[in-house]
């Protein structure tokens, strides 16, 4: 087990290194720099000074080595577009907002998705099943900014039940972004819970459990759901990093001041330190989530062996 984790971490470190190199090269090969004329009209001497200050006048490989050694010490540099703040400060200010929204969304969406999935599987081919399947399909196929717009039109503009956007002034501000963000993951959770439960229901041990007179509730909760969990974890694990790093579409629509907008702004502004930090953040989260997903298997299903 320990050997396996170490092996995986080593692999992760390698991918991490590759991602950092590729992102760095890609970023610098993109035409246009952070201090180009349209952004900051400067005399050439001043521009040269700025470039020297940020080390942008040095050869690329030196810049990379400087960046990585600083980053490994926890210093991600100053943001070019907001020079008064370090990258770490900006992320520290905005990421908690995205984590809050994303975290609540994950819990609510997965919880309700699994419960609805169980209901749909138990009441197969009834109205409950059809409504649940319709909701899931809607959440899965329709983009979240489309759902966001519908929510705004109905609940904020027409009915005026909920605030149209913003963050941190009113607890109701979280409801609409949460639904817009969560309907997709809920759909996935519901679909897979239903499919894998329907599959499990045909197994012999379920027939045995019923034959020995176990209450239906016990059959479902104790025997079926436990065994249906594995495919659900595989599919849902990888959704978590996306949700907790802030989704630009939903955050733009509801004016949530989270991390999401920096994914776009940093690229447009050629804000190199910010781009690198975000890329590494995402890569690290992905690696960790995949590792955790694999480890969770072994907890849920003792038959799974890690190699």
């Amino acid at each position, binding site marked *: 087990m320990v050997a396996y984790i170490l092996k995986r971490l080593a692999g992760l470190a390698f991918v991490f290194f590759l991602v950092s190199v590729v992102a760095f090269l890609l970023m610098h090969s*993109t035409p246009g720099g952070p201090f180009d004329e349209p952004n900051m009209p400067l005399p050439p001497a001043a521009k040269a000074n700025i470039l020297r200050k940020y080390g942008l006048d040095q050869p690329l490989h030196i810049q990379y080595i400087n960046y990585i050694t600083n980053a490994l010490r926890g210093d991600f540099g100053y943001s070019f577009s907001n020079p008064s703040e370090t990258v770490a400060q900006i992320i520290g200010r905005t990421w908690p907002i995205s984590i809050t929204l994303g975290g609540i969304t994950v819990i609510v969406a997965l919880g309700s998705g699994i419960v609805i999935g169980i209901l749909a599987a138990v009441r197969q081919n009834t109205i409950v099943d059809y409504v649940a399947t319709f909701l899931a*399909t809607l959440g899965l*196929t*329709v983009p979240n900014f489309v759902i966001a717009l519908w929510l705004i039109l109905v609940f904020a503009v027409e009915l005026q039940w909920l605030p149209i956007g913003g963050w941190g002034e009113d607890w109701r501000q979280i409801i609409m972004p949460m639904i817009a963000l969560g309907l997709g993951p809920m759909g996935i959770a519901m679909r897979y819970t239903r499919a894998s439960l329907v599959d499990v229901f045909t197994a012999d041990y379920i027939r045995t459990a019923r034959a020995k007179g176990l209450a239906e509730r016990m059959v479902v909760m104790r025997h079926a759901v436990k065994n249906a969990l594995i495919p659900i974890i595989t599919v849902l694990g990888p959704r978590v990093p996306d949700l907790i790093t802030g989704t630009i579409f939903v955050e*733009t629509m509801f004016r949530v001041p989270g991390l999401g907008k920096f994914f776009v702004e940093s690229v447009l502004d050629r804000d190199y330190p910010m781009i690198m930090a*975000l890329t590494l953040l*995402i890569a690290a989260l992905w690696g960790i989530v995949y590792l955790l997903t694999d480890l969770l298997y072994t907890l849920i299903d003792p038959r799974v062996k890690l190699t």
Partner: protein
Amino acid sequence: MSAIATKDAVTAVDPIISRPPSNLWRDAAIRFSKNKLAMGALIIVGFLVFLAVFADVLAPQPNFARPIDARKFPGEAGYILGTDDVGRDMLKRLIHGIRTSLIVGVSVQAIALVIGAALGLSAGFIGGWVDFFVMRVVELFTAIPQLLFALFLISIFGGGMFNVILAIALIAWVDICRLTRAQLFSLREKEFIEAARAVGVPSWQIAWRHLLPNALTPLIIAVTLGIPTAIFTEAGLSFLGLGIDEPTASLGKMVGVSSAYIRVYWHMGLLPTLMIALIMLSFSFVGDGLRDALDPRLRK
């Protein structure tokens, strides 16, 4: 387990003796036509394709309300669906938006299929260091945030429809590559491949005549279901104002622009979002129907 093995053996032998091998497609067509949801969706897709192909005839551009920024509600001044933020006929913009969506969806998947299938085939068939190399590239593309990557590409290539298609295709090939490779790995172990190898069929012929046709159905399904995903990505990029350039219409861009007018001109947001939802749902249902029809083992 043994029951499944016998069934496989029977289906593998049976067609050669009693039925022509083209039956897979006819069977699939029959199964598909019995699926009401998928057939309904197919009719809608057909209608959307019709609109896209004849967009220039049905909705000749440009058509501005006068004065040029006059915004009209649906039904007002002869504009059935109103106008957009700069006074263009909404109905015409929607039809051209559909065309953009379909062009992007289909071209992205075509490019992705070429790249993904080529790399996946070589990884799965040659194996060894080729496989190692391809899989590392796949991992790399998985680890880089997709939106960030697409933005990079667009800022390197510039906006415009072709570049947007290229940028999305360079993300979309990964899934197809992984699927092709996985298919080949599972097929390689099957008895009929072993049998072909045992009777001395050269390896390129095994790849071409046995592996590829068997790997084809999951690929068809993946490509069909990839079309709505690509359409979604384009809509997302254009929503942010980074995708399709003016004056080409894009449903995502229309949604993005609409948010400033949402309290008054509700139709500017509602209509394109309804259209996106319709496109996504109908393509997804056709894809699901294809999967059920082509792979009856999956059906419950």
